[in-house]
């Protein structure tokens, strides 16, 4: 790891000013992706602004028909929260599939979303549940947030403060994990929302995406059978030593069926 200047933020404003005052800073939430990236010398920031002590950005609450999760809430907290388990159990389940217990004690929802790894779990929930991402300056709809591989609508220095999930009628998540990294090779989150069914896929492509054919099939018949014959195209899907695009395309249908079954 190349050396950098470590700066601990004491407030949201302090974090923003430390970030903008540095040559080429990165924010660190839980660091579960950033530190491995730095160790491999894939990045060389001048400064690292640690958000880990911003307690105002931690916590889970219910607001109207929404479940609100603050950005620095760790996966373990989402996984074990009675509120999440009662309002959106699929989201609690998803949080419990990320990494391992030690990673879940450090990794945060805000960090995961800002990083937008093609195989991250949370983007599928955010997109399928039609969540809203709140930043220090604005709100961004899930539909507009994920713009490409490791790319989001966030501006330089902009910080996620919380994510607001409309509570769905039903939701389910199922993934096929890589046996070594536990990242989803393909993960599918399905939700029966006020705006109709939404199906979001992570791990398969460069960025999380929806499957409109499945969504329309589910609108008339919410059941695993409804999507069983929807075949996804392998065009443009990820290819690596673990899975071919064709295999990933096949997994989307299998995971979608299981996610719908889990949703009930």
């Amino acid at each position, binding site marked *: 790891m190349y050396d950098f*200047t*470590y700066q601990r933020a004491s407030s949201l404003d302090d974090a923003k000013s430390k970030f903008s005052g540095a040559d080429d800073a990165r924010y*660190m939430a839980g660091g579960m992706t950033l530190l*491995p990236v730095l*160790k491999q010398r894939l990045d060389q920031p001048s400064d690292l602004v640690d958000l880990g002590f911003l307690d105002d950005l931690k916590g889970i609450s219910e607001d109207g028909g929404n479940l609100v999760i603050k950005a620095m809430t760790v996966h373990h907290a989402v996984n074990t929260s009675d509120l999440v388990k009662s309002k959106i159990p699929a989201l609690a389940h998803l949080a419990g599939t990320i990494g*391992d*217990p*030690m990673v879940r*004690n450090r990794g945060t929802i805000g960090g995961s979303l800002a990083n937008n790894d093609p195989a991250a779990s949370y983007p599928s929930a955010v997109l399928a549940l039609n969540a809203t991402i709140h930043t220090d300056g604005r709100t961004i709809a899930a539909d507009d947030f994920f713009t490409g591989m490791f790319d989001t609508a966030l501006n330089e220095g902009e910080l996620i403060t919380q994510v607001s999930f409309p509570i769905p009628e039903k939701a389910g998540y199922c993934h096929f994990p890589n046996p070594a990294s536990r990242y989803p090779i393909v993960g599918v989150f399905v939700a029966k929302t006020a705006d109709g069914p939404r199906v979001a896929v992570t791990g398969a492509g460069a960025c999380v995406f929806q499957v409109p054919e499945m969504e329309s099939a589910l609108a008339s018949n919410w059941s695993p059978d409804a999507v069983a014959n929807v075949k996804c195209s392998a065009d443009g899907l990820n290819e690596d030593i673990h899975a071919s695009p064709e295999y990933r395309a096949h997994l989307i249908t299998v995971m979608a069926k299981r996610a719908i079954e889990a949703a009930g």
Partner: protein
Amino acid sequence: MSSYSIKMTVNGKEVSGEVEGRTLLVQFLRDHLGLTGTHVGCDTTQCGACTVHVNGRAMKSCTLLAAHADGADVTTIEGLADGDNLHPMQEAFREHHALQCGFCTPGMVMSAIGLVKDNPKMSEKDVRHGLEGNICRCTGYHNIVEAILDAQTKMGA
């Protein structure tokens, strides 16, 4: 680059040192404090041999900055036993021969204590799921799982 004066509590003792921004907690523990019970297996957040407790939560010290742990309360494998009396988890690992080469053991024990703390009524399946972040390259998982299930009963007693 700058250096940072840090202070923390490690196994109940106040310690301090000078570190770089990039110094990892595991380097501080091993190289600065000489606490070599915490191991570096993969250095990529996968194997769990470096697991310690930071403010009561199990974490991988190869993926934590020492500067981030400034002010924290850290427990390592060296801090578990009370004199000659092993912690119930260590005792159970000995009793069940839950180790072969022993390299992963400090991380397994620290991780296992975290698991029992979070859920004192784990099934065998829960234990196996909970150990996803700890790799034993001797593949000696069977006795490790037995030991954790046994220690869970004793820790609750």
